[in-house]
């Protein structure tokens, strides 16, 4: 009897497989949240550490470094051997800037912001053009590439308003067993 049980167990072990699909990843987007009241405000602050820097712009010995989705670092570069951070322009959802004369254009969440930087120490808001990126207004990411879908982490509206998206991967490895 003991032998039979053992044989049965042995057969069962032979047929049963426990395995995982390895290296099964999926690209998805994770939301960047901001305080929904503050997102449409431009605030000039003192310099702060550079992090998540992404894009860069140069005009008249001043360097503008965009911190992804947060704002613009203003750096006095009259002495390239000694660049001097002078201001941080807080601007939610900012990704790009361009300048014509002393006027700077920057994106702020769904809006286009027009600033005067005649004095880089004192950036001033000239006007705001609402709804430059209407696609973002629904708070959902745009569909990228030639596909019909885009995975993203579900939005938790208690965390604020979505001002941007980070691309990432997630491990969707599932383990399973079968007979």
């Amino acid at each position: 009897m003991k032998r039979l049980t053992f044989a049965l167990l042995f057969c069962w072990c032979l047929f049963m497989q426990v395995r995982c699909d390895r290296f099964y990843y999926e690209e998805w987007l994770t939301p960047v949240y901001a305080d929904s009241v503050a997102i449409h405000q431009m605030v000039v602050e003192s310099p702060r550490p550079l992090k998540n820097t992404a894009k860069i712009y140069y005009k008249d010995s001043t360097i503008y470094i965009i911190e992804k989705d947060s704002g613009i670092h203003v750096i006095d570069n009259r002495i390239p051997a000694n660049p001097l951070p002078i201001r941080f322009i807080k601007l939610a959802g900012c990704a790009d800037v361009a300048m014509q004369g002393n006027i700077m254009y920057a994106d702020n969440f769904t809006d286009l912001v027009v600033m005067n930087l005649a004095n880089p120490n004192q950036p001033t808001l000239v006007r705001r053009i609402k709804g430059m990126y209407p696609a973002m207004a629904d708070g959902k990411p745009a569909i990228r590439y030639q596909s019909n879908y885009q995975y993203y982490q579900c939005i938790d509206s208690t965390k604020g308003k979505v001002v941007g998206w980070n691309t990432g991967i997630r491990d969707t490895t599932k383990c399973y067993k079968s007979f």
Partner: protein
Amino acid sequence: MRNYLYFILLGSLLSICWACAKDAGVTTTSNTGKGGSLARFAIVGNYFYVVSDYSMKIYNISIPDNPQFIANEYVGWGIETMFAHGKNLFLGSSNGVYLYEIQPNGTIVRKSYYRHFQSCDPVVAEGQYAYSTIRSGWDCRIRDTINELQILNVSDIDAPQLVSKFKMDFPIGLGVDGDHLFVCDKEGLRILNVADKRNPTQIHYIKNIDAVDVIVLDKHLLIIGASKLTQLDYRDMAHPKIISTLNLK
């Protein structure tokens, strides 16, 4: 009396300067700054172009502090970067490079599309040539493993031709200055000699520079990384030297 004359002279000089400054503000494009190769904003003449995933918004900025919206055009999927070159706009997308021509009224017309494998690819151009880096990676396209620089002949905007390729590790932003090309790669900054477009050669691979994108100034390179700003003096191309690193982390 002499003082009085001086005042008049000074006054007239000032008014001339003022007139020049005003003139420059209205008519020339040299009044714009310089962006890196990963930009999605471009200013050409009196027009301001904003590209998002698949649309292009165009504003008239002849009065810079009061942009007037003039058009919104569909430009194609997965647009990631924009580079203005003369009257052309080069759009780097996840499938290839779109070449657009700017019309006198500021609107744009697609002239051609150079397709490559799905990947990320900023593009810059100078003279008759465009330079595009193609990289694999999670944020671009999952299973491709192409990492290279491509040089295109764009003298015929209707039919860009691939001239050569150069293998890279994981290239991102790039900048060009005549015969020299600067490419931000996985381990640092590559400097290539591209005098012979068919056969680009590497002069330097300066490692341990945090490099994502560059801006080419006068023999002076601004290199932005994830948390660092590095400046490189390349007046002596044989011995480029780092003049400063801003790391405020």
